[in-house]
């Protein structure tokens, strides 16, 4: 009897040990997260309450950085541009869904297409930026084709017109992100059993009705994921702008991340840049919560 208790621990102890094992498995990842995510997040948040220029020790200034934001015209310009940049999200998601549905059919040759759409995703953003700078040039390919097709009468300064530059940069984000979100939607489509669409077809639904009433509702979890991810990356757009327009002309592509970068590494106002980061994080969190509220239900599970 006694020997048996020794060999087989009580249920409570067994559960405790299982939890311990689980945490031990999690430990390496948690340590990495703590070092490279949680610590910087906390440090950055705390930094927003300080004046810090790297060289002299930080000085506590309370909420002064946030008060200064309120009257800083470049903060509002940057915030406005970043929010405008969100317009890329619905267009990008719509295109990615259409593309995914198209390449989902397993006809021969589509594998190549999938790979081709994915190629921009794995290309370095700096290379993409330089490439598109050439394409957008006055004598570049985009203008050349549009002039040849007689759509335009004179070349458009895509990256050098204050009213157009932001949208030209957005298009590059769209072009580069398309393949990534297409893959997310492909995975979502794979998970939908073909029976649903067949049943709808038997009931007499045409392709458009099937898409609207069957496929899109079932894709909702993927749409939620992809929309949230792409909204977050739209708010923190930086590289495209840095390579293609450096924030100009007349600050029309000056985004929050660009302003943070300028304040931190151009002007050495690291506390102020951290405050900008906190505001951007708040906007991002708000947006993510909103998209979860809007798109939570749907998919294959019943709520």
């Amino acid at each position, binding site marked *: 009897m006694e020997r048996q208790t020794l060999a087989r621990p009580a249920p409570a102890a067994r559960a405790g040990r299982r939890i311990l094992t689980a945490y031990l498995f999690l430990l390496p990842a948690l340590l990495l997260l703590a070092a490279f995510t949680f610590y910087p997040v906390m440090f950055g948040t705390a930094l927003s309450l300080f004046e810090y220029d*790297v060289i*002299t020790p930080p000085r506590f200034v309370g909420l002064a950085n946030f008060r200064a934001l309120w009257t800083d015209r470049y903060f509002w310009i940057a915030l406005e541009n970043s929010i405008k940049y969100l317009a890329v999200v619905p267009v990008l998601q719509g295109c990615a869904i259409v593309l995914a549905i198209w390449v989902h059919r397993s006809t021969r040759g589509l594998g190549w297409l999938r790979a081709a759409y994915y190629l921009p995703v794995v290309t370095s953003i700096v290379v993409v930026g330089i490439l598109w700078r050439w394409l957008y040039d006055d004598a570049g390919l985009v203008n050349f084709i549009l002039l040849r097709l007689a759509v335009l009468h004179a070349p458009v*300064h895509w990256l050098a017109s204050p009213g157009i530059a932001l949208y030209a940069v957005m298009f590059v984000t769209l072009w580069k992100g398309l393949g990534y979100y297409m893959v997310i939607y492909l995975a979502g489509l794979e998970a939908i059993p073909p029976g649903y669409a067949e049943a709808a077809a038997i009931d007499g639904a045409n392709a458009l009705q099937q898409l609207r009433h069957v496929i899109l509702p079932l894709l909702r979890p993927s749409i939620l994921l992809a929309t949230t991810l792409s909204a977050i990356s739209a708010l923190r757009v930086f590289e495209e702008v840095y390579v293609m327009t*450096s924030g100009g002309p*007349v600050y029309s592509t000056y985004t929050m991340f660009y302003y943070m970068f*300028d304040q931190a590494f*151009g002007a050495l106002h690291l506390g102020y840049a951290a405050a900008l980061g906190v505001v951007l994080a708040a906007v991002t969190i708000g947006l993510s919560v909103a998209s979860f509220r809007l798109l939570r239900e749907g998919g294959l599970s019943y709520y």
Partner: protein
Amino acid sequence: MQNRHTIRRSLAVLLLALLTTTGVAAAAPRARVEFWTISLQPFFSGYIHGLIAQYERAHPAVSIRWIDVPAQAIDQKLLAAVAGGVAPDVVNLNTEGTVRMAQAHALVDMDGAVPATARARYFPNIWSSTRYLGSVYGIPWYVVPNILAYNQTVFRRAGLDPAHPPASGDAFIQAATAIKERTGIYGFMPNVDGIRFLRVFQEDGLPILSPDRRRAVFNGPDHVRLLAQYVSLFKRDAFPADTLQRGYLGATERYAAGQLGMLTTGPQFLLRVRSDSPDVYRDTRVAAYPLGRGRVLDLPTMALTVPLRGRHRAEAVEFALFVTNDTNQLAFCHLVVIFPSTQAAARDSYFTRGGVTPEDQARAIAAGELGIARDLTVVVPHSDELFRAFREAIESAFFGRMTPQQALDWAVKEWNGKL
């Protein structure tokens, strides 16, 4: 028995070896001086390695570690290094970078660190390039006055005489518009991007600040007229639309592609044209920079600075003085069209000799201009905020958001609120 002896003996030898090596290390701890330069690889690697080898031979207690940083990355890398407690000991910065770091109290005051006899070797006006609030924060290394490079084939196609390039600011603009009208190729990309209009004003003899430096004064009628002239050139498509964003890099690229008639640039960029497009290089002629009404030439200065956080300050200053001494600067000037900051080196007949290649001609031309040259970098407190407002005003004028008068009035008001 025999065996144990061998073991004991070899242990003793090992111990002895350990002792001697640590002993040597303790006797002569080599000061490791980290030396950062801007974009000198790969063209000048040999020269810098030579300097370092020579210095290390003469100073066995010092070892130099050379790191070359791209121009766009130097600010961030330097900050990261300082913040991480691994600041380099000697850093090459331009005037703007030096002043920005000096404003953050990150640099050693060179008026104090360099003995008066050594200071006297440099041109006084160049030594003062990095003066901020009364102190100098960089030992001047080399200076690169702008010259005019032009494509003689484009000149001929436009009906201009390659033997008579434009000699004044007005003639320069005339030639540029003629090239654009007659060939369709842009004549020039004026240096008006970012805050470089501050230099354009000064080149035309117009002041930026009041004499006491407490007020901005760049909204006078002459300032407005000058800006309006460039705005109307821009509206007439006399220079490319991306001029305001691409700056000198865009201009060099366009010139090297044969798509620009004239290039006002530091002569060191000829090297890039030579390696990128030999055809255009063969067609390239050089002339003196077309001076504006101010008859003054900008003299961008490269300085060697010593961060306060560096660990070997004395060695760092000494090494910086070695790099910038007469002999070493003269040797550097033999490799590329740059000019020394020290007076004895500049007197060398090499600079006035001339020659056949564009580089040799550029050297002789620029040498003749050094007398009227001065670093036109505007040094003001809160420079990031003032420059951001200035850039916005200039771009607003170019893109028709404001008239030149409104734009300059607004920028002056912004400046005066912060000066």
